[in-house]
């Protein structure tokens, strides 16, 4: 799960990680109030969306007066912000973070992530802060410091020192940095984060260490033990069809193509999307109904796929293990009777109770196209595509 920068900074505050003074605003009047409380110029107005690259897209601006704060906040709130992470359609900005300007002496990069290969927690830091860290990693990997920590041992002072010396910090900054890093690690562990990133972490002219930006992502599987984080969920940042699907425990991701597909199991679902592409079409979604799907889930999955107006055809691919083919067939028949089939549907079923499933579909009187195997399914999808 992702949260906004201002929410991440609330968490930082809880852990005594220094952040600039400021506050969130949903309209220009609120932005003025925050700026008035700060009392000094310049202030920074930052768009709050779940995507990076906001500065380049025109979502982060400096204001030198109250009038400028009002003007910039009015311009950013409501704008469609396009960055390299939002896709071409961009994201509508609903709120801004208004913060004090800082006397920046140095910009650093700092992040903590789990490393899947070693099962260790990795702290990554670089003096090349404020930049695209992937580009730094690709061109000058020696500029990135990496420290691996066994989660059972936890963070030790020497790990923090290793990072601090690697960053060539002056002695007056060393102590606040080490204490900040230890707090950040604690936050990462306490909340089951999948990413904590500060880019840039700034050293000010006054030798203060301050998190100018804040990005925190969480492991969805661990949200059950972090009810306070679930409160931070912002449904406006998600696709409405995906939100609808999540209500029924369906794993749905909307894509740009026109062939909908419903599959049981994530791996087979990806492989089915790939086979649609091989057939010369583009998948409209990823939809995994899971191993133990009920007829009701299948029905809702069908309805959600049809909610995407780009869908011109549907491929259902089920390998029945726990999900039996007769249950799937009943779900499809119900869905078709309720919502009506408005586009051609190709169904391929295999596995448990496949004969009963085929019988239910055949006796339903629905005009479904049945495919005997994956190869046949791909061919029938290709025929659909050329037919349109």
């Amino acid at each position: 799960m992702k949260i906004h920068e201002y929410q991440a900074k609330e968490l930082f505050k809880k852990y005594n990680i220094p952040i600039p003074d400021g506050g969130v605003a949903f309209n220009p009047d609120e932005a003025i109030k925050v700026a008035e409380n700060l009392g000094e110029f310049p202030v920074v107005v930052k768009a709050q969306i779940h995507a990076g690259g906001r500065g380049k897209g025109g979502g982060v601006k400096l204001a030198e007066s109250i009038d400028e704060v009002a003007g910039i906040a009015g311009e950013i709130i409501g704008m469609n912000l396009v960055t390299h992470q939002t896709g071409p359609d961009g994201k509508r900005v609903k709120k801004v973070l208004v913060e004090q300007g800082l006397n920046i002496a140095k910009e650093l990069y700092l992040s903590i992530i789990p490393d899947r290969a070693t099962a260790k927690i990795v702290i990554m830091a670089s003096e090349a802060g404020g930049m695209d860290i992937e580009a730094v990693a690709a061109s000058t990997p020696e500029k990135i410091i990496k420290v691996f920590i066994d989660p059972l041992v936890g963070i030790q002072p020497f790990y923090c020192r290793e990072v601090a010396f690697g960053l060539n910090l002056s002695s007056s900054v060393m102590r606040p940095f080490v204490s900040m890093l230890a707090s950040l690690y604690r936050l990462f562990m306490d909340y089951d984060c999948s990413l904590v990133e500060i880019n840039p972490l700034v050293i000010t002219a006054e030798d203060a260490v301050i998190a100018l930006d804040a990005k925190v992502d969480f492991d969805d599987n661990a949200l059950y033990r972090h009810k306070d984080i679930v409160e931070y969920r912002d449904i406006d940042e998600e696709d409405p069809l995906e939100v609808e699907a999540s209500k029924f425990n369906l794993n749905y991701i909307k894509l740009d193509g026109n062939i909908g597909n419903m599959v049981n199991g994530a791996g087979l679902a990806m492989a089915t999307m790939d086979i649609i592409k091989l057939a010369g079409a583009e998948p409209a979604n990823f939809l995994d109904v899971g191993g133990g799907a009920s007829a009701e889930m299948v029905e809702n999955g069908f309805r959600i796929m049809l909610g995407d107006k780009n869908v011109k055809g549907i491929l259902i691919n089920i390998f029945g293990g726990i999900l039996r083919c007769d249950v799937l067939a009943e779900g499809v028949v119900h869905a078709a009777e309720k919502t009506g089939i408005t586009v051609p549907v190709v169904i391929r079923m295999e596995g448990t109770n496949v004969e009963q499933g085929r019988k239910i579909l055949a006796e339903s009187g629905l005009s479904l196209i049945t495919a005997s195997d994956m190869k046949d399914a791909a061919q029938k999808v290709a025929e659909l595509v050329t037919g349109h």
Partner: protein
Amino acid sequence: MSIFVDNNTRLLVQGITGKEGQFHTQQCVAYGTNVVAGVTPGKGGQKMEDIPVFNTVKEAVAQTGANCSMVFVPPAFAADAIMEATDAGVDIIVAITEGVPVMDMMKVKNYMKGAPSRLIGPNCPGIITPGQCKIGIMPGPIHKPGGPVGVVSRSGTLTYEVVHQLTLQGIGQTTCLGIGGDPVNGTNFIDCLDAFEKDPETTGIVMVGEIGGTAEEEASEFIKKHMTKPVVGFVAGLTAPPGRRMGHAGAIISGSSGTAQAKIEAMKAGGIHICENLGLFGELCSKVF
């Protein structure tokens, strides 16, 4: 022959009295697996059908000689269950549970370092040596006993698809296993490839990968250096968009790493026969094996 499990396997089931645990235990018994014990804390002394239930894994091992455990407990308790089985010295631990927090698995992985137990999963369909024993949730009848092909995969139903196509071509399997779709798991591709290479009855291997991480790339390096047996490979997720978790917690392209294209290229460089079209998987296998 086979790898990791066979008809000497004595299975205990952690979470045997839950709905899922009960159903799949019955399916395993029906397939012929020797299920000797169940563990549900607080239900020791009861029976699930004819299978004795114990409070702790240690007790179950001491009383029944169980050497393999199938974990069916809910995600919040899975790490605890796996560590309990490790502590009790169980040889093979198969964790079916989906949705275990990554941090829990990182702790488990570090805890198990140096321990003799082998973990398969979590978030996996399990392991089957066709005709001998089934430990997991896969449909038994799609498998064909007797070998000569070993199957290892990161996925569930996609594994069934591949195995089904092998069986339709008349190609049997020695052992088929899913290593799980989570970012941090127990047994990896290399462990399985190494075991298949050493298993005299296995003459070829099927390896099914997906986007995310670098497991396929590392496996390809291993194959190039250490394997003499032919490997047929498939990778799911060519059309997956970056930055989105495709169902499995581990199936995510982050930045430029973890793409299907990069994996396919690495696998080709490792000498693996790549199947680009899943519809033609069985046909390719019948040519290679």
